[in-house]
């Protein structure tokens, strides 16, 4: 973390006067040879403090930039402004109590975080393969809705930052529909806390499937419209093509994941490589870029949204129990020691009362051991490493946040670019500080 002393930009007029004076002096004697001459031409380097509250940093990211004219010569990211100690908090509560905290990691895709966390705990409990199919389909739909929502936001804000405000308005109109869907499913628009260890909080409400189908019709049109506004737009292409180039090797070396890795040309998706839930029963493609510049990353996100729509359509068709679940397909694992019983049973049956009491006070009794589960989230691989010593709380919970690794490439990526290029680069890396700082 840089101290504030390093970023002193004095009085601008005084500096300009001093620079002019220096220039006058420099004219008089013959220009010195070699490196000194070079320094004279370029003048003093300027330190610019970008952030922590700058519209293009999409959160509280601060970057100390060293500028030579308009060219960035050094970039030092300074993170931690949104650090809340989630990992410390997790050690003090039962597994289910931590679910609301996962909403606040990547707060643009809370549903996907809920699912990833629940799957990690279920892997520790050994029930991740025993989830009822209806629950798995609902969770896949949650993940894909979250992906569309997160990419629409990433796309809209990236376009807005490079000057195309219309796209932002288009995508945010569509996100409103997603939030309505999420609200009728979970009861909350933003902080969903929808999954539980061993299942989901509630079944699909009536009419939700029809509503979702209608949304999918609309969003395909919306994606096409947004793409038409951008993909062959001269200003947009000029600002993103061959800007922020990341080669495949560098992307792997810096631990980039998700669309940023695929934009660099590596066809890798955890949903394909290590299918969790029912992803192995669904057909979709993994889009990749060829160059690894900002434009490629943008195109990968556009195409991923289309693939998510395809996945959602398949889920709506194939979901066991159908729209109204007349067959009463379960949405939780049938284990009273993991999933809370219904309130009616608690009030009438001794065994369920004990289960409820133990689950609330002690949490599910997890075995001792280590598990790591990584899920393909909109931003990349969101991993949870749980070190358990047994019992209802983790001894250590480590969150492997994709935005954290994605941002670590900035000191390598930014130097050599113009100052204005930071905006499309940030937009195309599409990070969220909530999960970066945790």
């Amino acid at each position, binding site marked *: *973390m840089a101290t504030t002393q390093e970023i002193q930009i004095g009085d601008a007029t005084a500096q300009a006067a001093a620079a002019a004076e220096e220039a006058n002096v420099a004219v008089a004697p013959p220009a010195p040879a070699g490196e000194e001459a070079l320094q004279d031409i370029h003048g003093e380097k300027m330190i610019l403090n970008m952030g922590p509250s700058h519209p293009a940093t999409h959160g509280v990211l601060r970057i100390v930039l060293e500028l030579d004219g308009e060219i960035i010569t050094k970039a030092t990211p300074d993170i931690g402004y949104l650090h809340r100690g989630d990992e410390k908090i997790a050690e003090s509560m039962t597994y289910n109590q931590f679910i609301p905290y996962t909403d606040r990691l990547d707060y643009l895709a809370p549903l996907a975080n809920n699912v990833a966390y629940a799957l990690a705990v279920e892997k520790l409990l050994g029930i991740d393969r025993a989830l009822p199919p209806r629950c798995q389909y609902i969770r896949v739909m949650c993940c894909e809705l979250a992906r569309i929502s997160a990419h629409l936001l990433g796309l809209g804000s990236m376009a807005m930052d490079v000057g195309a405000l219309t796209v932002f308005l288009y995508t945010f109109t569509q996100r409103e529909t997603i939030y309505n869907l999420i609200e009728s499913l979970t009861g909350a628009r933003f902080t969903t806390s929808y999954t539980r260890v061993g299942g989901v909080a509630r079944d699909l409400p009536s009419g939700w499937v029809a509503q979702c189908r209608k949304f999918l019709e609309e969003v395909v049109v919306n994606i096409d419209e947004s793409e038409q506004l951008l993909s062959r737009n001269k200003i947009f292409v000029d600002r993103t093509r061959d800007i922020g180039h990341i080669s495949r090797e560098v992307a792997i070396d810096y631990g980039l994941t998700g669309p940023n890795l695929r934009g660099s040309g590596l066809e890798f998706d955890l949903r394909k490589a290590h299918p969790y839930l029912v992803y192995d029963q669904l057909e979709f493609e993994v889009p990749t870029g060829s160059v690894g510049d900002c434009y490629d990353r943008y195109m990968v996100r556009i195409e991923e949204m289309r693939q998510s729509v395809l996945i959602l359509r398949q889920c709506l068709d194939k979901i066991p129990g159908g729209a109204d679940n007349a067959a009463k397909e379960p949405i939780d694992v049938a284990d009273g020691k993991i999933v809370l019983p219904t309130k009616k049973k608690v009030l009438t049956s001794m065994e369920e009362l004990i289960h409820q009491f133990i689950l609330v006070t002690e949490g599910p009794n997890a075995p001792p051991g280590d598990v790591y589960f990584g899920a393909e989230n909109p931003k990349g691989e969101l*991993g949870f490493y749980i070190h358990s010593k047994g*019992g209802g709380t983790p001894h250590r919970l480590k969150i492997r946040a994709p935005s954290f690794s994605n941002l670590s490439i900035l000191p390598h990526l930014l130097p050599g670019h113009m100052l204005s290029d930071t905006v499309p680069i940030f937009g195309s890396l599409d990070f969220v500080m909530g999960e970066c700082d945790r």
Partner: protein
Amino acid sequence: MSARELAQQLKTRFGDLISEPAEFRGEITLQLSDADCIAEICDFAKKQLGFDFLADVSSVDNYGSDPRFTVVYHLYGYGHHCALRIKTGVGEEVSELPSVTGVWKTADWHEREVYDMMGIRFRNHPDLRRILMWDGYPYFPLRKDFPLAGKPSNVPDVAFTNPAPMEGGPFVTIPGGKDSGAREPRVRMPEAEIKMEHKF
């Protein structure tokens, strides 16, 4: 090639330094007995065994037992799609081990975070500074002897350094306490933690 075979190759190369591969929930874990060899082993794993992606570096505080810390590396290979976990113990009085930034660039920030949160130092790290907490912060917050509410610190230019008011949350649960006072204390102390472990 499976993760177990790759782990076995690592074991063949380094012999007694590395434990037998242990499997839990389909994941292979190797225990490294000498933390000073971690860079060498990671270099071999990347160059010879194709583990080109370091997913994560994290640390565990085993408060009250020896060695106090465990550093955990999650390796992955995009070529063979196998994952491997390497764990190594680090004692409290040393709390230092070689950096793997020379092997994977991504280790830079991960190791800074481990240093910031747990106070474990990495030798030959290019820029070992705090990353999430501010410069000059005197404690390592993820250690078990650091209370959840925080500790006061006298860092200049920082607005809030008093312990957090715990009334009303964040909610602290110690499973299995005898009454609600013991089960949901306002502050979780490391002593209670150790008592809890004996229970299971």
